[in-house]
Each structure stands twice: as structure tokens, then as C-alpha cells.
């Protein structure tokens, strides 16, 4: 599903080139649940952003379902965002001015889903995450965990094939974190959704079935469990 070949990401500073990612090769298959780990500044989020088309690599090739991402235009990328990828952020990134219902509905608007269908899809999602009662509240009226649930619900409403989660539990305490991880695990096992998450926590990483360790922009170790 995802094939990264020799990906470089760097920032040029006067005489020096600072590499964030260097020579990254990575293959991810459909149905994987992958945790990216590593110290701060190792390039975890950058890797995730490149995978999610939010950022471009400076060098190297990236194939998404055999489509060369490095030569996709904005429109095509948006299309992928709408139909294949769901994002979950550490800071939730809900839109403050929209209610829970409207936040979840938003991706459907960009996909031009019809009104009646939208209604039922959002209702399903609210039901699934047990937040029906909160649908008319604004994000600021929810706890962090609830906000992240909404964030996950929003990511899932487009039935994505791939979920990218950047420290989804970074701001949550452990009970809430586990809840979110269980949701991811369930999606992965039951619906075959590919999940890639960045995390600092070994416990959270253990929900996945494969760990990628990043050190200074280089993958140092993959699949520690395979031994």
C-alpha cells in the first residue's frame, strides 16, 4: 500500500544541510497497525506528514497504491485525503466554532455527500462512539478524551483505508488513551483499516503489530517483535 524509497527531508541552513529524514525505506501493507517511536526530533511526525501528503519529501520516491505521490497535484492529493486517509492529531484540532456534529460532518461536505446520507453517517458515528448526547456541544465544552473521540470519529467518517495518528494520546491520561487505542485496534482487526501512529509510550505502541524506531531521521530497527 505504501512504498517509501530513499526518502530524504532536510532543511538548508547557510552552509549546512540538516537532515530530518535520511534515506528512509519503508513498506507498509494494507491492514498493518504500525507504531512509529523515537526520541523528540527524530523525524517521526515528519515521516507521518509525508505519508499523509501534508508534507513533501525533498528526495526519494513515494508510492501510494502504486501512484507516485511525488508527482501528484494538489487536487489529486485532496482527493486522497477525502477518500483514503483520516488524520488524528495530538491537539485534537477540532474547529472551535463548530459543534461535535458539525465537526464530524465536515469531511463529508468536502466529499459532497448528500444531505440525508450525511445525516445517517454522522448518526452512526455518534452512536458508535457513544457521544450522541454531546452532538450539539462545542469542543471547548468537552474533556480532552471526548475531544479526541470526536477527532477519531471525524477521521473515520470518510471510511478511510489509512489512519494517521500523530501522538493521538499525547494529551490524554491513561484510561482515555486505552479507550482510543482499543478503537484503533478494533478498526484494524475488524475493518482492515491500516493504522500508523506516532507515540512515545511503549504501552500504546504495543497495541500495534509492528514498531518502527527512528533515530535522527534514520530507521534503526523495525519489527522488534518478529524475533
Amino acid at each position, binding site marked *: 500500500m505504501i512504498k517509501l524509497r530513499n526518502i530524504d527531508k532536510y532543511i538548508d541552513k547557510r552552509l549546512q544541510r540538516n537532515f530530518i529524514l535520511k534515506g528512509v525505506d519503508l513498506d507498509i501493507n494494507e491492514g498493518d497497525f504500525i507504531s512509529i517511536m523515537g526520541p523528540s526530533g527524530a523525524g517521526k*511526525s515528519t515521516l507521518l*506528514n509525508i505519508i*499523509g501528503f*501534508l*508534507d513533501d519529501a525533498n528526495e526519494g520516491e513515494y508510492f501510494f497504491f502504486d501512484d507516485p505521490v511525488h508527482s501528484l497535484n*494538489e*487536487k489529486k492529493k*485532496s*482527493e*486522497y*485525503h*477525502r*477518500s483514503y486517509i483520516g*488524520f488524528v*492529531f495530538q*491537539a485534537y*484540532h*477540532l*474547529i*472551535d*466554532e*463548530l459543534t461535535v456534529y*458539525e465537526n464530524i*460532518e*465536515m*469531511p463529508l*461536505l*468536502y*466529499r*459532497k455527500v448528500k444531505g440525508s446520507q450525511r445525516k445517517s453517517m454522522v448518526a452512526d458515528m455518534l452512536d458508535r462512539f457513544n457521544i450522541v448526547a454531546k452532538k450539539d456541544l462545542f469542543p471547548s465544552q468537552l474533556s480532552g478524551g471526548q475531544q479526541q473521540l470526536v477527532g477519531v470519529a*471525524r477521521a473515520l467518517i*470518510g471510511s478511510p483505508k489509512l489512519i494517521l495518528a500523530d501522538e493521538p494520546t499525547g494529551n490524554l491520561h491513561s484510561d482515555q488513551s486505552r479507550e482510543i487505542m482499543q478503537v484503533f485496534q478494533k478498526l484494524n482487526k475488524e475493518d482492515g483499516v491500516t493504522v500508523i501512529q506516532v507515540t512515545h509510550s511503549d504501552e500504546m505502541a504495543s497495541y500495534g503489530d509492528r514498531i518502527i524506531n527512528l533515530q535522527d531521521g534514520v530507521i534503526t530497527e523495525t519489527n522488534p517483535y518478529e524475533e
Partner: protein
Amino acid sequence: MFSNYFKIALRNIRKHKAYSFINIAGLSLGISLCLLILIYVSHQLSYDSFHEKADRIVRVSLHDEDSKNAVTPSMVAPTLDFVTSDIEKWVRLYEPTKYSPIIISTENEKFQEESFIYADSSFFEIFSFNMIVGNPEEALKNPRSLVLTESTSKKLFGTIDVLGKTVNGKIFNTDYDFEITGVVKDVPQNSHFSFDYLGSLNTMKSWSQLSDTELKSANFYTYLLLKPESTKENLVSKTNEYLAANMPEERTFGLDFTPVRDLFLYSDFEYEIAPMGSIQNVYGFSLLAVLILLIGIFNYINLATARSSKRASEVGIRKSLGALKKQLILQFYGESVVLTLISVFIAVLLVELFKDPFFGLIGQKIQFSVLTDPFAIVLLFSITLITSFFAGSYPALLLSSYEPVQVLKGLFNKKGSDGTLRKSLVIFQFMISTFLIVGTIIIYLQTDFILNKNLGFNKEEIIVLPARDRELATKQDILKSEILRQSGVQAATYMSNIPGKTFGGYSSEHTPNSERVSTNAGAADKDLIKTLKLELIAGNNFPQNPSYSKEQGYVYLLNEKLVGEYGWTPEEAIGKRFNVLGNREGEVIGVVKDFNFASLREQVEPLALFVNSEMYNYLLVKISPENPQQTLASLKSVWDDIAPHRPFEYQFMDQQLDALYKSEIQTRNLILLFSGLAIFIACLGLVGLSSFLVEKRAKEIGIRKVLGASVTNIISLLSSDFIKLVAVGFIVASPIAWFVMDSWLQNFAFRIDIGLTVFIYTALIALFATIITVSWQSIKAALSNPVESLKSE
């Protein structure tokens, strides 16, 4: 999708109340002023377009070496008709009320009237005034026929069913019994001349000045209706050919033809039929309206970009959810449309509420409603589009271009180039404000100057009584002596013309060597000097009962200016033979010091005064400042006793003189309003901007406070940035303001100097406004507990 944008826009407006208030207040004020001014401008541009044949109507006027006159002799129109075949119809207007009010009496009532015009019978074939009763072709044919306007008819008779009724008119020294032959709709506001009464010029058939064949004085407004196939150029060339062939070679005069629709805005003629507008005002006012709207739009742009860091994460989220840049641009435009629509809505309310006082302020009576006038609706629509476009473009393009990865990670670059833009916009706003403040101060000082300038005569406590008709002619002396006997009356004099109103223009000559000088001239009696407190600098006043006949000769008082034109000293002038208009041979007996008998826009012109009791139009009464009401009451009883055929209607001379500067006073009021609003809107913007910047620098302020900065340190730190911007705006705008206002002052022969103080005051006002606005936020920030701001990281 759109409902989503709309919702976000509305909720943003509700959530950020202060921000929205600033934007909406600025925009709605700007839009309402813009609307009002554009309505005014379109009204000004519509003058005389209601005439169906407006394209073919021209007015003839006369110029000579040093003046352009709106009036022509009566023979001009018939002669032109004879000379060229271009003319389909012609009409001459003569307005007796230009010289003095007339008395119109019905069976029961009498009215002093000021708007009576005589016209040739072709009047209604040229001009499209809507006749509602009577036959337009016949109405002005017979002598002593009279057409009324609808409201005049209702005033006189309470009805418009007045055909065949008669009224009596006392016009100058003659009484006429007019038969009413028609009623027209009231003259539209956008007509360059107006009338309440329209008499047939045939009534005046026997008047010596009205001749189709002989050259007499210029008293008539002459209009031509050209044939459809004729052109103005053709008319001009034929006229010039004729003049060249028939006039002496040293001819100094010529004829001009002005299309009727250009008259109102472009006339620069003397002796105009009514006060005219000016295209400069139209341009100036339009520019001001646009500037005010710009200040409001700049507020929007400034606040939107200042807030952009907050909106950025929303952009990031939307992009990661698959929003296209195009869709985001649309969304942000949507927000500016929503905000503009709200502002437009409020602006419409403001316009409806304040249109009458506003138009009153600039001396216009414009009937109009935004909601029903198709022009206004088109205007609203375009203002909405233009404003949303200009206000929305920069924020929309800036925000939609943010890269999601940066904003979501909080790496959003806070410096950016938008800081420069914001600064330039603030500078520009304060340039406009500076310009308007300087303008306001100068216009204020100048109007104050002309309203209070010593005119060289006393204008206070002088009552002006129109007093010319046949019956009064025999009672002049009794009336005056009775009035003088009343307590509180200090002096009284008869005059043919009064200061501030047109004096006749004549050519004068010093008889032995026939040296000619053109001069203003008028009649007055011996108490003129005493009543107006003029200063006699040589010779004597008029004697008690001077002669004024061709046989015995006239006596003259000249002003210094006229004496100077002849190259005499005041003393030399005494005893010189002198003649005005060629038929008033006489002797100079005195010279008076120059006084401003006309507008202060002009220098004092030559003036010759003589005695002729047949020419008196006004009685001027100087009363004592004590108890004027009682004096007026006793004057009224004398008047009603001696002149029961006339109502006792008077005016104060100082008020009449102030009316000369109506347009200056209107401009002054308007610019005061504009500059007040401009500063208000600009300061609103500053409040918004400073609160955002203070918020942004909260951490810096916290750290500084922890490190020992005092409240004053913080306030000056935060305020100095803005003061710098305002100072730059001031420095850039000052020379422009000086230049523009200096050229405005050139309209006046008597004017103030633009001193440094004007600019010092302007700087102080701008500075004061800025400090007040900005320090409000700064103080709040400086007083806040640093723990609060530091903890948030």
C-alpha cells in the same frame, strides 16, 4: 458546504464580539456615508436631465474681456433665430424677484414672494415642466397670464382648480392683475432654476429693456432649443460669422452656448439665475466617501491578518480533511461577504435614519429611499460586492495558502510579510485622518474668518425691509420718518441694492474726456453712511434733497477703488463730472472708504452710489441692540399702518450676508463629520490591532515584568509602535493637505494663512486619539499578572 461556511462565519462573528463590532462599525459607517454621498452625487449629475429635449437645449450667455455673464440682452434670441436656421424655439426668462421681493395678493391674503419668473410663451415647448391644469401651448401667450406651481396654487387658493382666477401682483412700481392660466407640478429639485410663479413675458411688452430688435441691457436668461439635426458647433460658427460681419472690429464681447445639462455643475457665470453647484464638490465629496470606506476596509484586512495565526489551524485541519485551496478561498470570501452584508444592512438603517439631517447638512433636499430606489439597490449590490472583494481578498489568499503541516505543528511563522502590510495600512489610515483634520481646521478657521471679518460697514442689528411698489413710492418719506420716530431705531436708509446681493454692473465715464471704467452702481439716500457706518474720506455726504434728473444732474459718492481706477486721489475726485450708464450725468461729491459689499471671495470692486428714489428696493433700519423685539413690534405697527397692502416681512442683514457662505458652511459641516468619523473608524481599528498585538506579546510582557519593568515602561513599549505609524502617516499627509487646502483658499480674495499651528494641532489630535486608544489595551496588559501569561506555555 455553503451553510457550513455561513455557520462558521456567523459563529466567528458572535464569538469574537469586539472584533466583529470593530469591523461592522467601521464598514457600516463607511458604507452608509458612501451611499449618502453617491446618492448626492447622482442627484447632482441628474440636474436638468428631466427635460425631454435636454440634449437640444442650450443657454446663451455673454462674455466680454473680463467677465462672463449668464444674462443677455433681449434681442439676442430673436436675432440668432434670424441669423441661423438651427434654432427650433427660443425662450427668454426674466426674474424680477432677483432684485426685490414682490407682493402677490388674492382676495383675502397677501404674500411677499421671492420666486417669480417671466417667460416667453414657448417656455413649455422647450422645458418639460409638467402642466396639470391648463394648456401649455396657450398658458403664457397673453399678457398678464400666470402659471402657478401646484404648491403655490394650494397656498393661495387651497386647490389646484384655479383656472381663470385672478391675483394681483405688485412688481416694482406697477400693479398687475394676473389671470391664472395653468398649474404645473412643483419644479423638480434637480432643475437648475426654480419658480413659484411663471408669468408671460408679454406682460412686460412695453418695457424699454424688452426689445426684439434693439440692443438693450443684459437682463434676460436666454435658452435655445436646437433643431434635432443641428449642432452646437454649427450654431457657434454661424454666430461668430454674423458678429464679425455686423459688429465693429474692436468688439470685445462674444456669445457662449452651454448645454442645459452642463449648466448646474460647470457654470462659472456671474448673475446666475440661481445658486449653482460645482463639479469640484462632486469630485471632492466622492473622494472623501471612498476614503472613509477604505479606512473601514483596511480595518477588516488588518484585523483579519492579525488574527490569521488563530485561523491558521482551522485551515490546516480543513486541508488535511481534503479541502482544496479554492474551497478555502471561497470560505474566507464568504466570511467577508457575510460581514459586509451585515454592515450593509446596518448601513441601510443608518441611511434611512440619518438621510434627512445629512442632506440638510449639505443643503440638499433629496427625496429618496434606499429600499425603493432602483439606483440605490444597484448601488447597494455593487458596494457589497466591492467591499467584500477588497476586504476579503488579502485574508482569503493569505490564509488559504498556509501549509497544513506548519500550522498544525504550531510552526506557523508569526513574522511573515503581513506585518509590513498592516503597518502600511495603518499609516494610510492616518494619512487620511491627518488630511481630514487639517482640512477641517483650515475650513473652520476660514469660515470663521469670513463670517467675522470687519467688512468696512456695520452689518449688525440692521433690518432689511423690501419696500418697492407703486403704493409705497408715494409714501416713502412718511414711512421712513415714522420709522425713525420709533424708539430703538437709530437710523434708516433706502437702497436699491443691499450688500451681499447683486449690484447692477454699469459702465461709468468721466465726461469731459469720456474715459470709461466699468463699475457697480446703486441708489441710496443720505442716511446710508449713518446707517451702515460707512467712512467718508473726502468731500461730503449726499445733501438733504439732492437732484436726480437728467436736467439738474445727479450727485455721486464713489468708493476708493473706483476713484483709484480713474487714477484720482480721493480729494481730486471731488467735483469731477461723472456719468453712469451714459444717462445720469452728474458730479462726484464724496468718496467713501472701501467696504465689502459683495462676497469675500472677491476683492472690493468699484462702486458708485447716487440718489434716485424711484430705484429704491429696500429700506434698511438700524435698531439698537436693546430690546429688539419691542422695536420690531413698533416697526410692524407703523408698517401695517402705512403699508397695509404689504406684509411686514424682514430679514437681518448679518444673516443675509452669512447666507453668502452657505456652501462653505456646508463644506465645513460635512468635512467635520467626515474627519470625526474617519478618526473614529481608524481608532476602532487601532483598538482591535493593539489588543491582538498585546495578546501576542503577552509572554514578552510577562517576562519583562518579572525582570522588573514598570507599568510605564510596558505602556510606552506597546504604544510607541503605533505612535510611530501615526507619526509617519502625519508626516506624509501634511504636505498633501497643505497643498490641497492652500488651493482651496485661493477661492477667497480674503483668506487666512495656513500657519504651523494648524499642523501642530493636527498632530496633537492624532497623537491624543492614538494614545487614548492604544494605551487602553497597553495598560490592561501592563497591569496583568505575569504569572497568568507565563503559565500558559
